């Protein structure tokens, strides 16, 4: 038997989680359909799959949205209940080696041959077959009934999903590789966006995604003088953003003024007070805005401060959102999603994690038995001076 944090499809509990999660982020773990259970270890779908025993497994923003019943219904056809959460995983293989999980369940993993055009082009995160093949529908491990997930003592993985961890890389660093791969992917998108390799960038949010994206961008940029403005709500986030290379960190309410001043923009607003405080629409702005939050407020803010013809990259997972897209139309702004990574991003992520010492972003770990505390801590991480929270499975007893 194994132990796992399993999310079941229980509509009433999911509704309760949604209510509780709105009242206090992370409370969905208390009243929702997430439960710690003794489970049978998942069976490998084909003989080539291997067992992975998680050592550390991170709690991601998308996990929190799922636990709190906030995840978009878009995901319904590309997840398969019940599933064990956890896709940021470093674990042990049967041969004693450690590996980091690349959780995307793309064509090769699903036994689909020939692969879809996206996978054939190396863009496995764009896989067009994520609900097909010999696996149940799921965009990633951690959302799939058959694979298990990182919040457990045991899961299965396709060899194509595993990246060996060098001996010199600690578990604490390795567990940051998957989110950093997202960040590398985002940073590459920045460099191919309107900002290019040197233009000013505004980065909204200084949680794990924001900080790792900043680190990745600085890593890829090398020695350029690119200005990067970062919004951070909390003091520890501000400190880390500065340490990782932010030109300037501001609170969210200061961003519009900071961008206005940096870009010598004018402001248009219907009243003098709002305009004077840069509370209206900037006439100019930064070439690229990276939204690592994905909320209605952050997206609206991104559209206010991006330059005409600029790019807004949505890195944080959004949901159903009401947004006035008039400025997007009028200013010919592009709004582009930024999801996951390629295999090459993963390779670079290892370099970034080591070069920028991103293991320092792992603030606290919990055993599975304290999952409610862990999830609450993760949901309140910024306010509590934390960044990444993870489950530590290294001391768990395998039965």
């Amino acid at each position, binding site marked *: 038997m194994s132990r796992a944090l399993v999310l079941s499809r229980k509509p009433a509990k999911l509704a309760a989680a949604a209510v509780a999660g709105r009242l206090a982020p992370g409370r969905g773990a208390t009243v929702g359909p997430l439960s710690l259970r003794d489970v049978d270890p998942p069976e490998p779908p084909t003989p080539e799959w291997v067992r992975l025993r998680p050592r550390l497994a991170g709690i991601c923003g998308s996990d929190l949205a799922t636990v709190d019943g906030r995840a978009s219904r878009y995901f319904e056809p590309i997840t398969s209940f019940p599933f064990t959460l956890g896709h940021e995983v470093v674990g042990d293989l049967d041969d004693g080696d450690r590996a980091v999980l690349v959780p995307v369940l793309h064509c090769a993993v699903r036994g689909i041959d020939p692969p879809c055009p996206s996978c054939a082009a190396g863009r496995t995160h764009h896989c067009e077959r994520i609900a097909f093949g010999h696996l149940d529908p799921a965009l990633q491990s951690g959302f799939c009934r058959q694979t298990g997930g990182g919040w457990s003592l045991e899961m299965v993985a396709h060899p194509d999903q595993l990246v060996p961890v060098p001996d010199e890389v600690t578990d604490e660093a390795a567990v940051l590789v998957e989110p950093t791969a997202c960040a590398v992917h985002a940073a590459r998108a920045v460099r191919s966006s309107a900002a290019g390799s040197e233009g000013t960038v505004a980065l909204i949010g200084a949680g794990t995604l924001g900080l790792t994206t900043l680190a990745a961008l600085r890593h890829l940029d090398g020695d350029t003088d690119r200005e990067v403005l970062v919004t951070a709500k909390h003091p520890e986030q501000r400190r880390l953003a500065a340490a990782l290379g932010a030109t*300037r960190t501001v609170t969210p309410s200061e961003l519009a003024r*900071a961008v206005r001043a940096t870009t*010598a923009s004018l402001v248009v607003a219907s009243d*003098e*007070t709002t305009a*004077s*405080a840069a509370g209206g629409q900037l006439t100019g702005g930064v070439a690229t805005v990276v939204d690592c939050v994905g909320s209605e407020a952050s997206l609206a803010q991104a559209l206010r401060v991006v330059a005409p013809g600029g790019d807004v990259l949505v890195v944080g997972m959004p949901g159903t959102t009401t947004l006035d897209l008039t400025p997007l139309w009028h200013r010919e702004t592009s709004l582009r999603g930024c999801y996951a990574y390629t295999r090459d991003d993963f390779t670079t992520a290892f370099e970034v994690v080591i070069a920028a010492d991103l293991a320092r972003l792992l603030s606290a770990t919990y055993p599975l038995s304290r999952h409610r505390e862990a999830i609450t801590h993760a949901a309140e991480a910024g306010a509590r001076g934390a960044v990444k929270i993870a489950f530590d499975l290294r001391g768990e007893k395998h039965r």
Partner: protein
Amino acid sequence: MPRPGLVLDVDRSTPPMLFHHGESFRLEKLPAGRSRVVYPAEPLDALDDVDGAIADALDHPLDSDPLSARLFAGMRLVIAFDDVSLPLPKMRRPDIRQRVIEAVLDRAAAAGVDDVRLIAALALHRRMTTDELRHAVGDRVYDAFAPDGRIYNHDAEDPDGLAFLGTTPQGEEVEINKAAAESDLLVYVNINLVSMDGGHKSTATGLASYRSIRHHHNPATMEQSRSFMDRHSSELHHSNWRMGKVIRDAGVNVFQIETTLNNDTFGEKGPLSVLQKREWEWSARDRMAFLGMQAGLKRMGPNTRRRAFQSWEAPYGVTSVTAGAVDPVHERTLDHCFAQHLVAVEGQTDVLTMGLPYICPYNVDSIMNPILVMCLGLGYFFNMYRGRPLVREGGVLIMSHPTPWDFHPVHHPSYIDFFEEVLADTTDPKLIAERYETRYAEDEWYRHLYRTSNAYHGVHPFYMWYWGAHALAHLGSVIIVGGDVKAVRRLGFRPASTLQDALEMATDTVGPQPTVTHLHNPPIVMAEVT
């Protein structure tokens, strides 16, 4: 006979001292046996016949022909006047500017002068509103000149409205208002509330552009102005005097009119009169009035309280009117200022305390934001000395003010950015100037707001910070009592909840049992420190 200012040694029988605290007050006990209080003089006797004094000054000017003799038909006459930053609080009607301007206009009319412009000499301050202009010059003058645009605010960013007059031997560029520069006579009407005002600074700063003002409003100049209330020891004034010579040599004819006001800030009778009395002389009625005022203020919301204070109009008396050539006029004006403000003080102190009131030159009908708190305390009040600073080098300044993290969005847009961006980086005036000044000064948005709205110029918060450069270099530490903790820390100062805590904290810097001096200001007092 008004009593002069005095220095009171505090003993155990000394009552608690009044500290202004923004839009409220505090009563604080000072340590007995090692504290003293510098009190302002009572209001000097006002002129009985102000209009007569104005006429006398215009008709018998110093080193000049009478004004009437310098007026002629067909000439271009510009009358410039001090802006809304003077006096503080504003003066009850009729404002002395109105009375002087009316007298000048009467003489101009008699001489057949019909090309007359009135210009508010606001330098890089915000534009005056219609109501403020009306208050300054009076309804009659405003209604005569406003319809065809002959009364207006100086615009230091108008490329077509400035004239470059040359440079001083030190390379300081002199660029002033074109209408004033090209006039046949520039009459400048001052209110010299303190000794810093007036002289060549009136035209060389009040009617100048950023290109010109930057030469003396910078950290190096401010740090070498010791103090800028003593013009002969002030690099700020030396620079303005050099510029004044360039202006004169360029052929600009200035007829300077300077006026002084007495210390009747809160009235000898009325709701605020207790603020003008010495605490040990407070009657039972005064105490009741003070307690009632405090209770009333506590019940008010912040906006109501601000409106109540800002609506106060002081019953100042006019103590002098002097006209003629700039230098002799200003020297006589300084005598009048010092007669009202100077108090002899023996020796410096370890700790200087002060209560900052609700108003400074840059928050009329506005919010006293943290940068202005710094400027009022470390700029204006600290510099209220002649000779040596009241507090010794390495000493501690304790100021009382709520210091809210709050800004008037229309008046102070660049202040918000300065506070959020610049002070988050450094509080060193020199570094601030090097890293940030040009960008703020040349920012098109700030320029637009300065020219079309009621915003201070983009560079203005820098000047407020430079204003405190001398104090920052001189002091060991600064403590603010009762201020917003985050705002105080952003200023680079230390927050304290009570004066007693602040005095205890001060011992970290100046050692145990420090001497304490309280500057009982306002009404205005200036220390002559020997």
